[in-house]
């Protein structure tokens, strides 16, 4: 009797599941519905909602909902219009003349004009803003002249081939000049843009609430519709605990989560209520950068030995369940001018590591099995933030174990995020964990050229964390930015990738990636191609 009942229930459930799937697919391809609230669960909270200040990924995730950019970038990397309808570049590459839309209004009522372009670029370049990302991207900025109400001429101190690419990123989003004039903390709390949504409030450590901008009709060409957003409201929750985020998604308490943990990808794929939206981001992959400014990594042989002792493939298989691809070179595969030639330049090779360490004089072994030279142990100090992502933590613990086999005493030293930043600023580390998301190979200049050895950003850390400094490399980086021909430029970036790979500056692991888990109630969620950042402009909910 019970068995029959169970079978019957199972049958009905199966049928329902089948219908259900069909229904979901229909809704996904069906007509968008206006209204409703989408609940989004993010893993990290922005330090400031204005993406000009500092400039870390959680800031741009929120910024993409309430800010527009001057230009857009499509899936093939081509630059298109957005707030600027067109532009002309002077033959010397030093002046960009932007023609602006006439019909854009910020959500505080301020009209969008050439003044706004000037105010925004000035704000990013102003040292008081402590802009590490946007400010770092426009080091060449020399000023803006207002030609007329809707025409702005932006002047650069040196040619900058990647200028339009970085302008397409949310980090350089355009804010209301009136709002920017307020004190920094106030603008962090309630910045104002012209985007499809506006910030209503930010309850720290809990949520950011956004509401539709009813006047919006200036979306980018990458969007799927025109006019105001479909959603009335977004509740952008901060849920750091990965299992809680995934549990809430399975229960349908939230509609979309970001940073779907690797261990939940397989269950997510087999769950008919869920779908996955994943895309690898361009830039410098998730990595550990070696500090070349002090022993033991001032010796290139020790650097290579260390990199060759890290079994990244093994960790990607066990901790990441083969869901993440390997990124073995200095650029992630989705970066323009990426070359696959360097993918295997640093594969796990403990034999070569042993040889190199012998050559470098680390021939002794102490009682614990670690290598020594002149009685001193081969120690690698790695400050790690307590807030570090579980999967990364597991990955670096596995690296620690394979390093130990080679004789490295790699010490993962947990500390608060602030303490890690402080050590970064003081060059007090041998290995620092990081990544850099950007849509241009010019990232190589930012993280390896001597131009970026100074302190930057709110925390005073260095964009070039390896301390690497090579005039030939710097010259190539400059040359690339002044080379308008794409093929020639690609050749230069190839040489730059070769230098970085041969100098043994990083252990690269996997590309930075956007991985959204989407419940069946949410549709039309899209990734803006420039940085693969979530855009909810085209999204709608059926509840």
């Amino acid at each position: 009797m019970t068995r029959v009942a169970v079978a019957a229930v199972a049958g009905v459930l199966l049928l329902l599941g089948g219908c259900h799937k069909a229904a979901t697919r229909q809704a996904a391809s069906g007509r968008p519905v206006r209204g409703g609230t989408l609940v989004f669960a993010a893993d990290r909270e922005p330090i400031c909602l204005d993406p000009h200040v500092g400039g870390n990924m959680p800031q741009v995730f929120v910024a993409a909902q309430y800010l527009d950019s001057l230009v857009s970038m499509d899936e093939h990397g081509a630059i298109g219009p957005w707030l600027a309808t067109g532009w002309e570049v002077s033959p010397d590459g030093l002046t960009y003349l932007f023609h602006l839309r006439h019909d854009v209004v910020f959500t505080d009522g301020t009209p969008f004009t050439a003044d706004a372009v000037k105010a925004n670029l000035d704000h990013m370049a102003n040292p008081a803003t402590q802009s590490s990302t946007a400010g770092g991207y426009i080091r060449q900025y020399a000023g803006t002249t207002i030609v007329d109400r809707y025409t702005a001429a932006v002047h650069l101190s040196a040619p900058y081939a990647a200028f339009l690419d970085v302008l397409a990123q949310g980090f350089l989003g355009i804010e209301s000049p009136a709002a920017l004039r307020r004190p920094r903390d106030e603008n962090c709390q309630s910045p104002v843009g012209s985007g499809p949504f506006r910030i209503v409030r930010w309850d720290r450590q809990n949520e950011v609430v956004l509401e539709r901008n009813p006047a919006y009709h200036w979306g980018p060409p990458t969007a799927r519709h025109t006019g105001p957003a479909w959603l009335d409201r977004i509740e952008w929750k901060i849920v750091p605990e990965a299992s809680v985020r995934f549990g809430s998604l399975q229960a349908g308490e939230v509609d979309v989560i970001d940073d779907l943990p690797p261990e939940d990808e397989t269950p997510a794929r087999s769950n008919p209520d869920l779908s996955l939206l994943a895309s690898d981001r361009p830039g410098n992959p998730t990595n550990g950068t070696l500090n070349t400014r002090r022993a033991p990594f001032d010796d290139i042989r020790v650097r290579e030995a260390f990199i060759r002792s890290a079994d990244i493939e093994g960790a990607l298989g066990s901790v990441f369940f083969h869901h993440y691809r390997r990124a073995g070179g200095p650029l992630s595969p989705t970066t323009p001018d990426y070359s696959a030639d360097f993918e295997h330049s640093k594969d796990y090779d403990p034999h070569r590591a042993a040889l190199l360490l012998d050559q470098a004089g680390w021939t002794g072994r102490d009682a614990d099995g670690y290598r020594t030279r002149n009685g001193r142990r081969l120690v690698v100090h790695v400050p790690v933030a307590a807030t570090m992502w579980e999967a990364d933590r597991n990955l670096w613990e596995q690296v620690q174990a394979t390093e130990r086999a080679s004789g490295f005493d790699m010490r993962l030293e947990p500390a608060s995020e602030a303490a890690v930043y402080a050590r970064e600023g003081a060059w007090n580390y041998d290995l620092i964990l990081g990544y850099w998301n950007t849509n241009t190979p010019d990232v190589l200049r930012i993280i390896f050229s001597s131009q970026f050895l100074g302190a930057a950003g709110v925390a005073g850390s260095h964009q070039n964390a390896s301390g690497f400094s090579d005039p030939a490399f710097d010259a190539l980086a400059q040359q690339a930015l002044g080379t308008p021909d794409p093929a020639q430029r690609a050749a230069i970036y190839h040489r730059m990738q070769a230098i970085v790979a041969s100098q043994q500056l990083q252990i690269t692991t996997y590309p930075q990636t956007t991985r959204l888990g989407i419940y069946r109630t949410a549709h039309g969620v899209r990734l803006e191609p420039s940085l693969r950042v979530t855009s909810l402009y085209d999204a709608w909910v059926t509840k």
Partner: protein
Amino acid sequence: MSAGLLDAAAGSAAAEAGQAGSRRPALRVAPALAGLFLLFLLLAAIAPDLLSHTDPLAIVPRDAFRPPGWAHPFGTDQSGRDIFARIVHGTRQSLLVGLGATGLAMAAAIGLGLLGGLCGRVAERAVGWLVQVMFSFPVLILALLFAASFGNGIVPLVAATGIGSAPGYARMVFGQVLSVRDAGYVEAARALGHGPLRIVRAHVLPNAMRPLVVTATMGVGHAIMWASALSFLGLGAPPPRPEWGTMLSMGRSFVANAWWLTFFPGLAIVLTMLSTTVLGRALQRRLEGRTA
């Protein structure tokens, strides 16, 4: 939280003490088992290699997430490390933290208790006030506060847990000293012309300490739990050192896919707590029996 429950258990143990001995005289199996388990832990702490030949730090990525079986009795973790080996090798640290923290807490408590009980009115007031204030903070909050200011590692962990649990002991010692201070035999000793130091050593301390022995036995288990909680929160020893609380924390994201990552470290903590509590109660019965 469990903290409340555990404190309640300890409290009721003290309250029931008078009748416990007569109520269940036949129940000697539990203390024996508890004793056996603690002996096993002691062995694991002194000579872990006798119990497990596997290296607790050896990672084998292709053996990740193996369920319990012949090769790995408790299974393997996300890096293919043997969980049984990690628990065995984590024992020394857990026991050290438990004993060290309890010792520290007792030392602090005795100092405070004697100071408050024997050094005049002002000291009595001050100590009473201090203990009350500290007691109003939950143990974990106090321990967190100290762990956050001392940094990571085993010594800060011992200090944080010890200081966190000191107020409870201090209140006990203080109360005992106050009651013993005016007892007849102390007055008699004073009348016989014994010096204050001798009185403290021969009369006050032994009598004030007796109930503390029981509480401290159970306290070791509690300290291990608090220390595990701190390392669960990321304030323990840095990786890759095996630590029960850290193992729990690292395994928690895999609860749905690989239960053994959290089950066995959790079991070790629970059994340790249970054993020290059972043993503490047995000890209590014997002590009460002797005085009665």
